[in-house]
Structures are given as C-alpha cells and as structure tokens.
C-alpha cells in the first residue's frame, strides 16, 4: 500500500470537485474492496475522499412509486428494509447471498456496484493483466479460467463482475443517479452502467473521473415470484460460479439476469422473451454469442440447469 492523503467531503458537489481536480484520487465508502486492492497495490490512489458523511444513506419512496436507495446505504440495511423485502425480494435475496454479515454491515450500495473483478491474475501484480496494467496481456486466457466469463468477452479480458446485488438491480431495471464535478445530475440505466471489456478492460463503467453515485433508483414493483439462486463450491462466503436472478409472473413470462458469466450483469432481451418457453430457450438466447474457455464451458450448461430449477420453483 502506498501512502495517501485523506479528506472527508463536506457535500456531494465538494466530493465530485475534489475528485475531478486530482486524477489520482478515489472515493472511499465502506472500503471493503478498495482498501484490499490498495494493500496489494492493485489500486494506488494518492488521495482518498471519504463520502460517508454526505447523508446519502437513506431509502425513500419515489413519486413514481419506486424506491430511491442512497449510495451509502449499507448492504445489510438495504436487505432488511421492509419495502425491499416485500416488493423487491430479489434484491434482498441477492444481497444476503453475498459476502458475510460483517462485510455487508459495512459495504455500500455504490461500492457494491463498483467492486472489481476477482480474477486471481488481477490480484497478483507479478502477472500480466490488461485490466490492472493496460497492454500487458491477459494471463487468464490460456491459464486458470474456471471462474471467468463465457460471454461478452474480448481477447483483452475475460473477467467477470462479481456482484450479487448488481444482478438483482439489473433484473429490476434500476437506474444509477450521479453528480458530475460540474454539478450536473445524471440518471444512467443499469444496463448502460457497466461496460464490456473490449480493448479497454480497465474502464469498467461509464462513470467519468470525479462522477459520484448518489443513489440507485428502483422503478415501481413488478410483482411476480422473485428468486435469486447463487451457485457456488461451498455453502457460504464464496463468490458465485454462476447466479440466476429472475422475476417470473404467473403466466410464465418474466425477466432474468445472470451473474458470474460476463463483465457485467448479463441480461438479454431475447432471453426474457423466451422465458415462458423454458430454460433451454432462454439460455440459448443468453449465450448465443458465448465464447467459453475449456475450463469454464460448463457454466453454460450450469446456467441452463439453474434457470430450469428457478422456473420450476417459481411455478411450483
């Protein structure tokens, strides 16, 4: 870990301003991802801007009948919130499937969306990694790639986005609200928020330097059976090998987002349309352009089977 300076931001605008005037700075929320990465010198900001004191930690109903979740709301509080549990069960279930109680007590909504990949080569600064060091190469391609992405990959990077919460947000069509350093407010649909790796896997979202997430807005509840199924090697405290977040209506229609398979929460319009025809049809649409490695090819079959189980459970 390199030495860094630290400030507590006094307002949303001041935070965004401070971050835009120093390109080596980063926001810190719960710190559960950022500090780990700094200890290993995967991230080396010289300045941290603490955004915990900005009052962004409330959950309020919106005029449209949805919910505005402050960027600093802790994962534990969000999962336990009465409205979330009643109307957005998928989100609550995805949150509690992630990390551990202690981590969720600290981890925030914005930090969770922005957590970085768990690719083991990304975590080892001796190894080439385009995401950590653009242009150095991708060690996972041709290497240990069991947990890597199978779809939306590039020749530069096959990493996954590891968040459980983001899968639910994607299925629920959340919108990310931000403030830019110039003071302007923006609303980014979650579908557009995370990027595919392409040639620039180090650029993971559409956020600009200094752009601060203030909230994540959920549209009005969509009802249906809401199921989050996380598949993993051990029963707890492990990132998903794959996960399936689905909302399934009584008539069998619905929506599905998949985790552990891509550089972003993976949702395909065509797959939603096929849902009522069953897991096989939906999975074909999800993975039409899949490019798995020898080690992770099984994920395609696994998602199809898991989705089959989710559909059966929803109908049950």
């Amino acid at each position: 870990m390199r030495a860094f300076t630290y400030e507590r931001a006094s307002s949303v605008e001041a935070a965004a301003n401070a971050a835009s005037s120093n390109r080596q700075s980063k926001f810190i929320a719960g710190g559960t991802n950022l500090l780990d990465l700094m200890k290993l010198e995967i991230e080396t900001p010289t300045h941290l801007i603490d955004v915990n004191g900005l009052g962004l930690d409330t959950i309020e109903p919106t005029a449209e009948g949805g919910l505005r979740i402050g960027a600093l709301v802790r994962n534990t509080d969000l999962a336990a919130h009465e409205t979330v549990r009643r109307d957005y069960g998928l989100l609550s279930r995805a949150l509690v499937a992630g990390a551990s109680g202690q981590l969720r007590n600290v981890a925030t909504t914005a930090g969770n969306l922005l957590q970085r990949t768990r690719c083991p080569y990304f975590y080892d600064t001796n190894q080439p990694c385009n995401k950590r060091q653009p242009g150095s190469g991708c060690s996972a391609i041709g290497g240990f790639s069991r947990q890597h992405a199978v779809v939306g990959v590039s020749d530069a990077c096959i990493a996954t986005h590891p968040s459980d919460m983001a899968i639910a947000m994607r299925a629920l069509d959340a919108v990310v609200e931000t403030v830019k350093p110039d003071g302007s407010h923006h609303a980014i649909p979650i579908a557009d928020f995370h990027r595919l790796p392409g040639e620039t896997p180090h650029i993971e979202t559409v956020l600009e330097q200094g752009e601060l997430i203030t909230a994540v807005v959920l549209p009005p509840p969509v009802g249906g059976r809401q199921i989050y199924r996380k598949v993993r090697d051990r029963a707890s405290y492990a990132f998903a090998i794959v996960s399936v977040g689905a909302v399934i209506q009584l008539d069998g229609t619905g929506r599905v987002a998949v985790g552990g398979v891509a550089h972003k929460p993976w949702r395909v319009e065509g797959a939603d349309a096929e849902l009522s025809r069953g897991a096989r049809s939906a999975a074909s649409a999800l993975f039409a352009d899949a490019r798995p490695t020898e080690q992770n090819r099984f994920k395609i079959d696994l998602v199809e089977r898991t989705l089959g189980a989710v559909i059966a459970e929803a109908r049950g």
Partner: protein
Amino acid sequence: MQFDKPATTNPIDQLKVVGQPIHRIDGELKTTGRAMYAYEWHDANLPYVYGYPVGAAIAKGRITAMDVSAAKRAPGVLAVVTTLDVGRREKGKFNTVNLFGGDEIQHYHQAIAVVVAETFEQARAAAGLVKVEYAEERGAFDLREAMAGAAKPDDSQEPDTAVGNFEAAFKAAAVTLEQSYETPDQSHAMMEPHASLAAWNGEELTVWTSSQMIDWWRSDLATTLGVDKEKIHLMSPFIGGGFGGKLFLRSDAVLAAFGAKAASRPVKVALPRPFIMNNTTHRPATIQRIRIGAGRDGRITAIAHESWSGDQPGGQLETAASQTRLLYAGADRMTAMRLATLHLPEGNAMRAPGEAPGLMALEIAMDEMAEKLGMDPIEFRIVNDTQVDPEKPERPFSHRDLVGCLKLGADRFGWSGRERPGARREGNWMIGMGVAAAFRNNLVLPSGARVRLDSQGVVTVETDMTDIGTGSYTIIAQTAAEMMGIGMNKVAVHLGDSRFPVSAGSGGQFGANSSTSGVYAACVKLREAVAAKLGFNSADVVFENGEVRSGNRSVPLAEAAGADGLVGEDKIEWGDLTKTHQQSTFGAHFVEVGVDIATGESRIRRMLAVCAAGRILNPITARSQVIGAMTMGAGGALSEELAVDTRRGFFVNHDLAGYEVAVHADIPHQDVIFMDETDPMSSPMKAKGVGELGLCGVSAAIANAIYNASGVRVRHYPITLDKLIGGLPQLADMSDAYRSRA
C-alpha cells in the same frame, strides 16, 4: 526410559485425571486474547520494528540484478536485506529448497528480500519499490506431463514393494477393478500465518516464532544463518495451527533474523496471506492407479496401488500407496511410487501425509469393487480385514479394531437405510450415504521432559513440546497430575521453549502419545526422587491427594519437596515393539450428502467418525482433533485445490478467497465415537495418535456418498459441480423435484 516391553499396570491406569473430559487449560488465555502468538509478542524492553518480505516473481531462473535504492530511501526504512546480500547459504536439513540466499530462483514467491521499517505500513510500501531483474528459465510444472519421466526414489523411501505375483493373481481373479484417481495440490491454510520476531543480543539470537518442532527449527535456523545452535533461543508457546506447514524452518524466521541483524533492532515478520501458498510448502498432487482382484466371495486375492507425485529436485514422495501395504488382506500384492521433478513450490508433509491422498483413492476403489461384487461396502471391508501385516504374516497388529468401528458406526449412523445409487430424493436434493475406512500408522519419537516439585506442592512441567491447538498443554498436565497424585490446579505446564528438554514435537500424530510418555518418564524419576528423599521404598509408595504414602507413613508433597524442591528429568525412547508389532490407528467414516439435482452442488448433511486409537487421553480435545480433521476432509473432498498455472509455474488461487476451505455452513452435523480400548504395545500411556486419523478416508466417504446420491462417480478431487452435472438427470426431469419442494 526405554519402552521395550508392553506396558503393564501403572499409575496412569487409575484414570482419575487422564481420560477425563477436562477443558483445555489454556482455553481462557486464548479466548481472552492473552495467549501471545508469535506476531503478537510484546515486551516493553523490545523496541521492535517490522520486516516485510519480497517474493520472486518468476518460478525458475536467476536474479541478474536488484535495485533497492528507492526502497532504502522510502520513509521509515531502516534496512533492506536481499538474497544477493546474504549469498548462498547452507540449507537446513529438513528443507528441500533454499529459504533465502543466493541468486537462484527455485520457485514462485521464494523469498528474495526483506524490507525493515519503523512501521508495518512503511515496510510494506517500501517492499513494493524493490526492483528485480531475472533471467527466466523453463521449468516443469505439469504433473501429468512430467509423469512419464518420473524416477524411482532411493530405497529409504520404500518406493517398491511386492509379495507373491500380483499380475498373475489379478489376471486369474473372478472380479477385477482397474481405475485411476487424482488428488490436487492442497494448502495447509492454517489460521495463524507464519510469523517470527527475532532479537539479537551480540552473537545470541532469540526468536519467538510459530513452530511445530522447536529443535528441528533451531538446528536448521543455525545452519541457515551459519551460527552456533547453542546461541539460538527459540520460543513458540502458542501456535495457531500448523497441519505440517510449520514442521520445518520457514522463511519468516530467517528473514526476521537477517533483518534484525541489519537494522540492529528486533524485527517482526509475518508472511502475508497471499504469499504463504507459494512461499511455503504444500501437499503435492498425486495421480494414482489402483487394481484390485477378488473372488466372487469378496475375498481380495490381488491388490496393487501405484502413485505418482512431483517435487523439487532433492524432494520426497507423497507416499500415497503406503497404507495399501497394511489395510486389507490379499496374498498377491504390490505398491509402487514414482517421483517427478516439478519446479512448483516445495511439496512436503501436510496432515496425514501419504494416507490422506492415498485413502482418497483407495477407499473409492473399495466402494467401486464392492459394487462390482454386489456386496455391501462395509461387508466387503470386513471380509478383507487382517490381523497381521499382509506382507509379513508373522508380524501381528498390536491392536486392530477396524471391524468394530465399521459395525458400531453402521449401527449408529443408520447405514441399513442406505439405498441404491440415485434412488433417494428429498425435493431437489438427491441424498446418499458413503462409508470409508480410516487408517494411519502410530508413529513415536523420543521425547524428553523435566518436572519440578516445589514447596507449595506445585508440579511444573517443562518440555519443548508444542501445542498447535491440539491440547498438548492439557493432556500433559493431566499426565503429571495423574502420576503425582495431585489435582490439575497443582500443575503448571510450560511448552515450546528451546531451553526445555527436547520433545517429540507436534506432527505425524506422534505428539500426544510421545510427549505424554516423556512426561510419564520424567514423573517416574520425580516419584523416585521423592521416595528417596523420604527414605521410602519406591516400589510401594502411593501418590494420592497431594500426599505421598508408604505403609502407614504419609507426607504432603509440598513438605517432601522442601525449600529446594525436587526435580525429575527423563526422556522416553522406543525399543523394538514397533518392529515386532504393526502399530496403527483405525476408524470408519460415515457421511450423508445431498447433491442438488440441478446445479450439482454437493452439501454434507451429517458425518460420523468411529475411531479406534488406543487410550483416549482426553475425550474433549481428542474429539476436537477428529472433527477438525473431518472438516479438513470436507474441504479436501469438495473444494480445496491449489490451481496450477502450468505455463508460469505457480499456484494461482493463492489466498483464502480463491482457495476455498470449508466454512461453517458446509459442516452441519458431526459426531465422533471413540472405541473403549488401550494398546499396551504403544507406550506407557497405552495411547496412540488421533490428530491425523480423523482426516484419513473422510474425503473418500464423501465421494462415495456423492456417488450413492447421484449415481455419478468422480475420481478426480475436488468433487466440484462441473464434474457432476454432465451425469445428472436432464433438465426436463427436474421440474417435479423443484415443484415438490414448494
């Protein structure tokens, strides 16, 4: 004391203290944070600073240049010591690769520098500034590729054994099995990282460390540093787990010593977690081939077990075939083990080396063979039990109750409820049961101790024995209390200090039996000293209730000790009983699992181990050993694997996020039953080891349960869902399972 005749009745047999369920005497220190582990050692007179290691970024080659100028200029830095600075060192006797020194890189994350600074953060930051240039060389990293060139190690490792004519008997057998099995590289992954605090006083060196074997470390540290062993004082009173990873000197102690010398300050070094898996040792992967031939009656006529593993040049076998020489009957038999050269980090002992991976394979093979014979796998094992060493029928087992373990376990576990493979369902769960035999030899090592009786009637035991979380403090106190006829509150135990008599140390499940036998021997000496001082005839004295009695004279121990106190010191040494008799420990593992019909996730539902391991010195600490080992076996069966990058030559998942040990949610219910037995051949304590037995066979029992649940046989550990889903029922057939769950 020479133990060369079977034990007869002795004071331990009273079992007033020994054998009782006594909570660990160091438990309160641990739960209140007052037990000081190596890295927490704190002393106002020791103004220590911090060392942070730098590891090699390549697997094989040479360092051509190191630039430490930026690191030396960094804030707070007091010294930087590089592997080039200290030059090539003589290697410790127990180390295969160099821990530090010289330009040669033998494996990834080999220690190449230590940066010493005023604070931990400064040392860590400066370590990131060390620049290294390498001349990289090609290495061998793939066991399967290296297998063909694997060599037969020297005879001391007993690579080949044969009795009768296996090939002919196998060919003639009515029913045969031939299969290959694979076990992966595994990491000890103990809770406490390797850590040392080193302080020089002139030529004298004091080291607080985390070591299973004080004397081995002291010798090898002396060799590596090039100092006189007598000048080193080593202490390791508390150890947060070792599992074999702390048997042999490790780089933290060497780096701390060099760093402390260079900085002229005491230095603390802990190996960072992501560094441990490639810097230290691991259990090597194996590829095994098993062939079994039997008659239709289920009697094994031919059995062969071959195993391939890899290690650095000069390294050792993972002796995965060795238990097959002893576990089951069969007239014609052979084992063979070959060692390939690999340039991965050093392979070495991890809990139950040999037996753990060996039984992972053999006990699946036994399950498969039972199925081929149409026999219950318990019955098949019972039919092939042997009371003598199958290679030397004139050599009996000292005591062997594998059959008792299997029968009792079957009864308690409800084995009769087991169904055919794939038959039992509960909603989305396919349920199955599995069994496996547990087997591990009972090893013994010489072990010394000193016991002092003071004028308060308190007995203080001193031995360099270690307590790696096993309960050594407690069973040693029990032994002394029983021998001297006093309560536990009158015994103090001091361990893990090189100023104390050299003990067996902790490893190979030899620690409990050997070290308590050493304490027994020392107590015999002390009893003699007490009797002699009082003029008692030592043959008829009784030590009871804090008094020593002879005829109608009785004297409180405190009074007998007098102002100067009395001392007894001795060492247990072992005669030929291990040669005339095969001494082993036995058990049976029972496991019930659920396999998710859609995802192939395997989850354990309940586990039972029945162990026959001689006298159980303390049922609480023994049980903890066994359930801990069962938990380790669950990780080994289901998730633990050091993933090898065969291009770059290192373990990729080198932290506890990537290397998945079992967590609480994986272990819902465990039971342990100890057979009520003693083994007079094993020691005056009549005890044997249990610390490793609990791991032996448990992974295979899980594998067999998964097969029974799902009908899919996986022979390549860990049994992760990707290896199962291809064989599970098709999607269309699953819907009902999920509906019935709702």
